[in-house]
């Protein structure tokens, strides 16, 4: 079944108020074109989740589309902090449920495997847990190990409405490959009610059948496939392109103040009609060619 649509069509399938799991990790495979289109379509009141907060979440929060974030902390690595997320937390304009990477992914695992809850050693003795017990009391509980009687922390399964995942290779059904580490992306997809795949390269299903051990997203879980080159820009896509260090620096500087962020959004999100115009604004093919990954290094 051919599920290939435009980014705009895929984004339009997401109602305001949805819970969206995003595939980014700091400055890599972040759903940047998706986030920009969400802002342009005026979708609001989203819950966003990911194990490690990335630039996609920061852009969405900076554009005012998010009311709740579930994440394990995050940054733009050495480029800076997630300034919009941090500011929103400090001002109390979003609710932040903060986890550790494993406790987030274990919630996805429980959601993926149909487990009623999952036990974990992490969080105990920490203020992260105290915080969760206040902000998300329905997400954590205690359970006795029926074999030893020992008391364990239990986490509630997480089932986002939609996972949005940047991949390197997908077919029109949504069967997809991810090169490099996959962090929480497989579990996000399995836990979510449906998935939107945004792919750098669209291939016939015949290609998928030639190396099926690589297929980490099953087509039947996917509702929309978007074929959109450089859709994670300015973040990196391993083996396809490197992060755009200059643009991330420009963003990190802008995001430090609400005014700077507004100017960034006006120029790079609202100032363009779509992702193609954004790429031209960056400098088009000439600029993007500089980012192409070295085939041996992968960056």
């Amino acid at each position, binding site marked *: 079944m051919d599920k290939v649509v435009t980014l705009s069509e895929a984004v339009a399938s997401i109602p305001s108020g949805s819970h969206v799991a995003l595939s980014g990790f700091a400055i890599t495979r972040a759903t940047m074109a998706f986030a920009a289109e969400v802002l342009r379509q005026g979708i609001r009141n989203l819950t966003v989740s990911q194990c490690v907060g990335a630039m996609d979440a920061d852009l969405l929060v900076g554009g005012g589309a998010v009311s709740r974030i579930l994440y394990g902390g995050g940054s733009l*690595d050495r480029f800076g902090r997630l300034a919009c997320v941090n500011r929103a937390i400090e001002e109390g304009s979003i609710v932040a449920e903060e986890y550790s990477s494993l406790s987030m992914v274990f919630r996805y695992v429980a959601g993926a495997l149909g487990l009623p809850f999952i036990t974990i050693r992490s969080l105990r003795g920490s203020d992260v847990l105290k915080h969760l017990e206040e902000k998300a009391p329905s997400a954590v509980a205690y359970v006795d190990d029926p074999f030893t009687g020992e008391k364990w922390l239990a986490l509630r399964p997480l089932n986002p409405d939609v996972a949005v995942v940047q991949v390197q290779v997908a077919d029109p059904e949504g069967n997809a490959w991810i090169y490099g580490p996959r962090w929480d992306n497989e579990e996000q997809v399995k836990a979510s009610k449906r998935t939107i795949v945004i792919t750098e390269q669209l291939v016939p299903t015949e290609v998928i059948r030639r190396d099926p051990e690589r297929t980490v997203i099953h087509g039947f879980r996917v509702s929309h496939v978007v074929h959109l080159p450089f859709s994670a820009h300015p973040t990196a896509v391993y083996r396809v392109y490197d992060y755009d260090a200059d643009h991330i620096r420009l963003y990190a500087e802008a995001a430090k103040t609400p005014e700077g962020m507004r100017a960034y959004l006006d120029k790079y999100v609202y100032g363009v009609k779509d992702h193609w115009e954004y790429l031209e604004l960056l400098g088009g093919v000439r600029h993007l060619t500089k980012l192409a990954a070295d085939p041996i290094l992968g960056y």
Partner: protein
Amino acid sequence: MGTEVEYTPFELMAVAGARELKNGEIVAVGLGLPVVATFLAKRTHAPDITIMFELGVIDPEPIHTGVGLADPRVWYRSKVLSTFVDMLGGVLHGGRVDVGFLGGLETDAYGNLNTTLLGDPKGKFRHFVGSGGANDIASSSKRTIIIIRHEERKLKEAVSFITSPGYIRGGQERAQAGLPGGPSRVITDKAIFGFDPESKRMTLLSIHPGCTLEDVLGTMGFKPIVPEHVPFTEPPTAEQVRIIREEIDPEGIYSG
């Protein structure tokens, strides 16, 4: 004594960290100096160390310095590229990690680490990075090594937010929370600390060459246990410094 070797404080920290690792151990590493220390150990006395990054990376051999764990530079020539569940679930929570190697905004007298926020969590605060895998690593590793700069605002009696538990408020509190292991060392640019077996309070183990006891204690936010005799930290060898400068961090991003 041989020729005097020149080194930066960060190089000394990396070397001191490397010395803590035994051959064959499995090490969960956060970014920055812990990476430099672990790669140094692997290239010297501990070639069979397994290096694990939480996002799904085992034993990379980078040739360029990355900006963070998410940077593909850091994954170059890995043996495994997989997932959080594989690394933090199967390896770490499964009980296989010998050493967790962490940095942070603040640590305290009981080795608790804060990477989340500064200020009053219920009032005015500044939010920073949060946990990532740090809480998980601090909770499930057999032991933890902390690397942090020696400043009064970073070495406090109690951190403002426990992101990653050390011995919590000391004594048996960590064990009572159901957690194994705990911090074994805190390495700063002035000294190396351990923890008292009973009270679990930070204990001065050695002072770096060129520093005095007053330097160490005068720039901390709390008073650690100080034994009667405190030796000097063994300085880096010329070969260790060469490997850091030429092979591991040629751009001097972490250890310069």
